[in-house]
């Protein structure tokens, strides 16, 4: 009995430690830096009917020499729209670019809706567009950059273990603009822009604790929400 009792005490102590660890990890997961987001929407032409079985493609602008719209950001917005309304067909960016090669490479991609006409003059291109039933082409232009960083951290390994000590902080800023082209009417129908910024922190006393500001994630959610609202406005 005594032996069984001590086993139970040890087991309970183990459970409590495990529970504490899980709680600590959950708390750490909840620790996030603050993010400020501003969204501006300018719609020239509200949709009058749903897009039905047509599709939408979201593409990143990559022709500027100093920045490129990140592929994962475009994927994030696409996923956000798909999650919000699974009846909207959002084409995968890379699949679309490959399917349309070489017309959507950085040096050849159309810069304005007026360029669509010239693309459609090519019969194979026009046929491909007809096959995928494209209704909206959404161009995302912008990027996320690190604005500032400061602090220092020292890590060491010894016979007794390893650890870090110090404090680091850095800021991130996102600036994205989505331009919506109505593919059927070959006209620009709206622009949505978002500016987000946030400061991340990393204090370290033995273990570094990252408190990350989800700047790009917030930009993705903000832009994704507005696009979703636009695309499913009449559903």
């Amino acid at each position, binding site marked *: 009995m005594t032996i069984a009792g001590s086993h139970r005490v040890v087991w309970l102590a183990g459970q409590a430690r495990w529970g504490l660890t899980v709680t600590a990890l959950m708390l750490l997961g909840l620790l996030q830096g603050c993010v400020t987001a501003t969204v501006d929407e300018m719609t020239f032409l509200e949709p009058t009917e749903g897009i039905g079985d047509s599709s939408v493609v979201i593409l990143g602008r990559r022709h500027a020499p100093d920045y*490129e719209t990140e592929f994962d950001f475009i994927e994030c917005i696409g996923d956000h729209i798909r999650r919000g309304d699974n009846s909207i067909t959002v084409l995968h960016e890379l699949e679309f670019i490959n399917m349309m*090669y070489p017309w959507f490479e950085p040096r050849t991609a159309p810069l304005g809706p007026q360029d669509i006409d010239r693309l459609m*003059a*090519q019969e194979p291109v026009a046929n491909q567009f007809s096959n995928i039933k494209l209704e909206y082409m959404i161009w995302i232009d912008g990027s996320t950059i690190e604005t500032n960083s400061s602090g220092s951290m020292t890590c060491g390994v010894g016979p007794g273990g390893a650890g870090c000590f110090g404090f680091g902080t850095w800021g991130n800023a996102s600036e994205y603009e989505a331009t919506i082209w109505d593919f059927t009417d070959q006209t620009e129908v709206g622009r949505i822009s978002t500016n987000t910024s946030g400061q991340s922190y990393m204090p370290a006393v033995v273990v570094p604790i990252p408190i990350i500001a989800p700047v790009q994630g917030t930009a993705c959610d903000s832009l994704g929400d507005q696009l979703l609202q636009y695309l499913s406005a009449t559903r």
Partner: protein
Amino acid sequence: MVAPSLDSMISGPNRLIRIGFALLLGLVLAACGAKQVVVQGNFPPPLMEKTPLTLGVVYTESFKTHEIYDEAAGREETDWLVKTGSAQVEFWDTLFTGMFTEVVHIDSHDALHAVEDEVDAVIIPYVEDLQYTIPLHTNVKVYEIWMKYRFRLVTMDAIHDHGNGELTYNPNQSLADWTLSAYGKTPTAFLQSDEEAVNLAAVVALRDAGANFATSFHRVPAVAEWLDTRNTITELPAPVTASVEESSTSEESSTSEGSSTSEESSTVDESTADDEGTTST
């Protein structure tokens, strides 16, 4: 029967030491050795109306085996060997096949004579220069690659067979001679290895070269003039930033700038100096 077992018993520990030493040496050498990348990628066919031409293609030996070797300048750097040859051939094959009604490879004396009457023109691509940047001062694995190509479009009459497996052409019989630039950058900063990042930058550069070629081929003045005489005009949308650096057929090849390790630039220069290009196959 007994001797081998005795031998193995005696030499067993020695062999282990030797193997261990060899492994250690291998690891040390691997750490010091050059980083090697054989460029590989999936290249989509171009979506465009085919130009009604039967195009002969000559890939020179230096083009098929194109590579750049960059020796480390300091202790912190490593040597790099980037092999683009097989990817170049795969990529340009896919592009030419998608752009022209028929593409014929001319890689030997027999091939030359077999297609003599069918081919409208022969294209000979060269990598004239290739440069890349290494992110030395950041941990972000984003590489950039610049490539400069030279294309020569010649008539079948310009290609001569010397009978020793070597094909030569006369540059004076060129229909067109132009250069084309391409740029590629690793599109993501989250790749695991430097090799992967270099490979992706090279693939992006190849795609850019293809996009540039596909949209500018018909706009090269000498090509346009030749197509005009054949009544083969294809209207293509203008590229956004494509730049075609046209050079006349009689003009001397421009020497490559920067730290090119490409062997082909010298071949091009030699061919111009000799007034007879060599496309050894």
